[in-house]
């Protein structure tokens, strides 16, 4: 029963998210209405069947109860928005637009028709947020490449098991399958966690949270150019460092032999790393990239 309620909530909330992102769906309904109201029959038999199918599927997905059934069918892995893959939105929009332009062409207004349709489509579409994502990805890719280059310079004789901020960890295995991670992208991307049955320990999860908080604050410090807020300075703060040895111990226990920490690392953090490495009879070497300090334990 609780699962059904979850599906129902997903269907109701998912519709709002879907309409917010996919405005062209409104065009689909406009075209369906136009197709019904046209006096002549410009829509051929197959076009008519495509419109009928689109209308029926859309109504099924708009009604929360039938949408819930569709969501169960497509499995819980996919959100409500993916159910709209069953509706041929692109085909219907393009078909309707082509028919509209043909109608205007008969009135001698073909160019106006094409420009009008293109303008409506552009206004309903994405207003240009993707380039921002591209630059963030490119930056993360560069950071990961620098870290990997340091590892290659050290030599890949021994198997490398990495612990790093998540923007590095999520890129590393996309670049090199030989580098292992103590936890993967499924630590923060729940969808990626659907691919296996592994569960991370609480200690490892806490270590991840600690590193991400430190990394985020170091990035803020970097933007604000305030040395008082640097990673090294933050490490001095008692609240953030109460359990740092426990976090580092959990990471080393998980097998990590490459630690990547943001910026310049404070002395007492380094001392902790050296102390814990000595407990396991490991030697420590370190190197630097533009943004990170890399510790190699062997």
């Amino acid at each position: 029963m609780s699962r059904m309620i979850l599906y129902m909530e997903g269907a109701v909330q998912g519709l709002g998210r879907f309409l917010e992102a996919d405005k062209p769906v409104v065009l689909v309904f406009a075209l369906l209405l136009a197709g019904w109201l046209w006096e002549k029959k410009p829509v051929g038999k197959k076009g008519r069947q495509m419109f009928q199918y689109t209308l029926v599927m859309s109504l099924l997905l708009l009604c929360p109860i039938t949408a819930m059934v569709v969501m169960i069918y497509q499995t819980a892995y996919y959100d409500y928005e993916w159910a709209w893959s069953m509706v041929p939105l692109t085909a219907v929009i393009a078909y309707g637009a082509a028919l509209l332009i043909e109608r205007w062409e008969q009135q001698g207004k073909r160019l106006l028709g094409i420009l009008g349709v293109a303008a409506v489509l552009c206004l309903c579409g994405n207003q240009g947020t993707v380039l921002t994502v591209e630059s963030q990805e490119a930056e993360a890719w560069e950071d990961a490449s620098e870290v990997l280059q340091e590892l290659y310079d050290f030599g890949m004789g021994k198997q490398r098991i990495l612990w790093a901020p998540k923007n590095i960890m999520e890129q590393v295995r996309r670049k090199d399958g030989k580098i292992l991670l103590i936890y993967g992208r499924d630590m923060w991307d729940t969808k990626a966690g659907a691919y296996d049955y592994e569960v991370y320990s609480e200690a490892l999860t806490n270590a991840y949270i600690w590193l991400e908080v430190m990394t985020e604050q170091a990035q803020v410090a970097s933007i604000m150019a305030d040395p008082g807020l640097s990673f090294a300075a933050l490490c001095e703060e008692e609240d953030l460092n109460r359990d740092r040895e426990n976090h580092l111990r959990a990471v080393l226990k998980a097998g990590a032999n490459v630690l990547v920490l943001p910026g310049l690392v404070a002395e007492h953090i380094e001392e902790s790393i050296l102390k814990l490495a000595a407990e396991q009879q490991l030697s420590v070497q370190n190197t630097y990239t533009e943004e990170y300090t890399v510790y190699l334990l062997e």
Partner: protein
Amino acid sequence: MIIILWILLAVLPGILGAGVLTIVYRRKNKCPFSFADSYLLGCVACIGMTQIAHMAGLLGGVSLWKTGLFLAAWLFAATMLCVVISAYGYFKDKSRYPHRGVEGKVTPTLLVVFLVLVGAQALFIYCMKAPITLGDITLETVQSFLAEDGIYKVLPLTGVASEQGMPMRYAILCLPTLYAVLSQGFGIEPELLVCHIIPVVVLAAAYLAYYRLSETLFGREKQKKRFLFLLMVALVLTVSDAAVFMDGYNALHSGYTGVAVRNLVLVPYTLCAALEGRWWKAVLCILAEACIVWTFLGCGVCVVITLGILILKILGKHLRIFGKREEQA
């Protein structure tokens, strides 16, 4: 080697599909040849053959290198057979083969606009960094296969051996094996192949699928309307990339994923097959979807489209939602 890969990706599915169509339509002399049909069927055939090789590698514990060799060998054999069959079919009945459309010519301006739009999309895909799509681990999986020279020997996200195992309905999906085999066989960086080369091929296949759909909706001879339809498709794909579930996002940023191949290629092709009543093609698309996307016991979007259109056809005489007035008149 990258040029050879491009040539193979452009030609091989077409040859396979042409052979299949020649066999299927051997008694139907008037069924015209269509390059789009051949290529799309060939892609579906490639997915099927990869699936078999993938299952052999997964269940048999065979190394990736041997799996690739097996796949290459029987793709080669199938291609040679299809070349012979297609050549025989061509010389037996040349009248099936392409003829020029008789209604409406595509104006140079529209053609240029379309080519610029599609060219810009292809260039964008090839040059820009592909963002990480939440829930997708294709590239990590390919890297794992290459690092371990085996299929699912380790967990893709961490690289360590699995203690609890993986869900079988994910492990049976064959696209990562195909990409790993191509990367290993042609010596191409996995990131370049998966995030840049494959999405361009999927984009081209998507336009072929919509072109084939336009033939169903407008008729073979109406070239101008079909081209206008294709131009509108290109525009929709360009502007609709605001979220991961939209066709534009799939085309421009995650064309290598199974859902992108399904939404961009299999969905329009299934729609086309169902509207024309060629159910065998729809069934092939359903099977192909089960091989590349996580579905409910193999039943996914293509099943819904096929059954939906089938039910509408059966109920066709009782439904008058569109075109009512003319029929009443």
